[in-house]
């Protein structure tokens, strides 16, 4: 018997660590991984609420989130590879071509 607030708290802290990764790191691959961590934190909250209510809807939503994350990673990594090919660097600080 675990109180659900523990799970929500863990999910919130994991989400925050992911958000910090997005803000602090300069490597786009690690920024991507942090986004995945945030998605996982949200999934954990979904599954714990589904478990509390005894319904399957939350689990099915997590399934959809996973497929969307897989699609996002495939396209995002292809974009990073293309950026590396054209600029020979993937530091996000140097991706300022649109800056006036």
């Amino acid at each position, binding site marked *: *018997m675990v109180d659900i*607030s523990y799970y929500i708290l863990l999910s919130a802290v994991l989400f925050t660590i992911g958000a910090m990764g997005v803000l602090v790191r*300069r490597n786009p*691959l690690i920024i991507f991984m942090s986004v*995945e*961590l945030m998605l996982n934190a949200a999934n954990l909250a979904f599954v714990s609420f589904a478990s509390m209510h005894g319904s399957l809807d939350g*689990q099915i939503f997590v399934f959809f989130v996973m497929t969307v994350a897989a699609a996002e990673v495939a396209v995002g990594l292809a*974009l990073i*590879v293309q950026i590396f090919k054209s600029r020979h660097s993937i530091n996000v600080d140097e991706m300022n071509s649109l800056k006036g």
Partner: protein
Amino acid sequence: MSIDLILFLILAVVALATALGMLLSKHAVYSALFLVLNFATIAVFYLLLGAPFIAISQVTVYAGAIMVLFLFVIMLLGSEVLAPSKVLRGQRWAAFGLAVVLVAETVYLLVSRHAAVGVIARPDAFLNTMDSLREIGTALFTQYLLPFEVTSILLLVAMVGAIVLTKQEKGGQK
């Protein structure tokens, strides 16, 4: 202190430590491996919560497919360690402050509102049999049929997009 709570606390410590390891390692490959461990820990959480299908999906899709793709790209680009560049002044501390604010707000809401009160019972025997899988399959193909089909189209579009993005141009302009 029940056995469930002890299990939860051990796993929570591992999950937080691996997430922080992902955030703090300088080497991108170490970050990816920390994240694999984190995903495996979250899969065990799903098992504790009585969601075996999601747990196995987590291991195969996240810890398997997605992280292998990440490791491939990290090694392909040789971007394990980026050279330090000029960062915005005070950005790290601003990010840390904002993170503390986010956690504090969440804790405050959890403590003050009592909105999500409930206990998670130990998953009963039903959830660890084929019956829960059967129920998920039935729900996916009846109630959630349209989202399921839309997801398949989304995966197709992502696949085509990834191929088009990384395709070599004919004539070798680059």
